[in-house]
């Protein structure tokens, strides 16, 4: 600026504003992309295990799920069937036995319902409803199919008479909400595995007994207890 000729000190202002606006616009997809894993990661997972969603059967309409992975299916007369979901079974793997409370004893929603036995570990599961136990499924371990790999139906574990059924059901997930929750659980599992699905297939194609065991041989029960909301 010599004081004898004009020089526009704001000449670049327009360009600067445009640059800032475009950077902010660019930032939106940048932020979204950096915050979540690449689509290819999901696709890689799917290609290794076709339709990851098939692993954990999507929740059926009539089932009401507790966040500890037990479910309740109302039958009639305030009696509900209670069981554990597909995710829980796949997570734990081979179950050697189940310790049930006695018929006639009471259970409470969110409190301990029954205990799974697998190897040396015992893992509690939470009951989805309040009420009195009217029946337990003894035949689970007597038949060859057992409680592990059955994919046709949802074998029930207990039948409970629930006086406050509608109140209980309000606290459980079903339908679209349950589906969303399951997606979140699946996501957390993928994150745990760091999307490294090779860990699950040890001997070239055979699914290792129990997802939790393949994540952590020693402390797999702690992982399971996390998902079952047992502290």
């Amino acid at each position, binding site marked *: 600026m010599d004081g004898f000729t004009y020089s526009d000190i704001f000449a670049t202002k327009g360009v600067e504003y445009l640059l800032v606006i475009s950077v902010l616009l660019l930032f939106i997809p940048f932020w979204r992309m950096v915050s979540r894993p690449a689509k290819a990661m999901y696709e890689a997972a799917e290609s290794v295990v076709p339709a990851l969603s098939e692993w954990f059967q999507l929740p059926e309409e009539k089932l009401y799920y*507790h*966040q*500890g992975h037990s479910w309740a299916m109302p039958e009639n007369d305030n009696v509900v069937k209670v069981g554990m979901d597909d995710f829980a079974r796949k997570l734990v793997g081979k179950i050697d036995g189940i310790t049930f409370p006695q018929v006639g004893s009471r259970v409470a*929603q*969110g409190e301990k319902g029954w205990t799974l036995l697998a190897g040396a570990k015992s893992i509690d599961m*939470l009951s989805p409803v309040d009420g009195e136990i009217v029946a337990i499924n003894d035949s689970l371990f007597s038949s060859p199919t057992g409680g592990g790999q059955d994919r046709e139906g949802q074998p029930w574990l207990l039948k409970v008479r629930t006086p406050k059924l509608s109140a209980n059901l309000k*606290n459980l997930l079903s339908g679209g909400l349950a589906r969303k929750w399951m997606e979140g659980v699946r996501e957390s599992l993928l994150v745990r595995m760091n999307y490294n699905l090779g860990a699950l297939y040890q001997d070239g194609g055979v699914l290792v007994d129990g997802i939790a065991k393949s994540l952590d041989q020693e402390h797999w029960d702690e992982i399971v207890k996390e998902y079952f*909301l047992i502290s």
Partner: protein
Amino acid sequence: MGIDRRTFLKGLGAGMAVTLPGSSLLARNLEAEDIAARKEFSGVLVDTTRCVGCRSCEMACAEAHGMPIPDIGDTSALDTVRPTSVTQWTVVNRYKTDKGDVFAKKQCMHCNQPGCVAACLVKAMAKQPDGAVTWDTNCMGCRYCMISCPFDIPKFEYDSAFPKIQKCSLCWERLQKGQKPACVEACPAEALTFGKRRDLIEEANRRIYGEAGKYVSHIYGEREVGGTGYLYLAAVPFEQIGFRTDLGTTAYPEYSKGFLYSVPIVLLLWPAFLIGINTITKRKNELQSREGGKR
């Protein structure tokens, strides 16, 4: 005491005015009252059209401050452009221009708002009220003043275990005694004029307009970096005689002022923001854990 300081200096000044030949300006220079009262900046006007390159100023400076005396008889020193050094607070350099050889004396410019003073964290560099920029021994030797000087003047004694910063002090100790700087006194060609900065600018303008075409119409140091104590006149453009003309008119301390004034703002706002965010996220976590617990 019989005679008070003011009267003594007045007498001294008058005596000197009578004994020394010179223009009315010289008489004004030596108004010891003003110098003693130190109300305004003093400075030196360097008229490069009068300088003959004798380097008496270099010798006088060295003598006055106990530094090795340069051999001014050996003119080979003028063959290269020299910077000031730890043993030479001022140097005279020769430049070949289209108007022949021009000699320019180089030393601390004694800026109105010195970068070195703003840089010094222990106030070792200080701008005195009479204009001199002085260095003091409480210096830490951090050399930040060297980074901040637009003219690269402060020089550091790297080879000493007890190093000092060396630069022209405008003969501040002599100024206290009512004397002129040694270089100004020694100059035989009246190229150097000491006086109040205000008066020197007037004198410089007088010379520019009085002797039409002799000088480039610019007083170097009038506005450069906010104005300096040393002012220069030349017959050729200043770039040709070793002066930087790209320094701007903003005083250098202004460049860090913005940052310095943001400090209290950040220290005020950040803790409030941080505690606020902390409270919000803590509450969010509490709510979440409460909801997630009992189901």
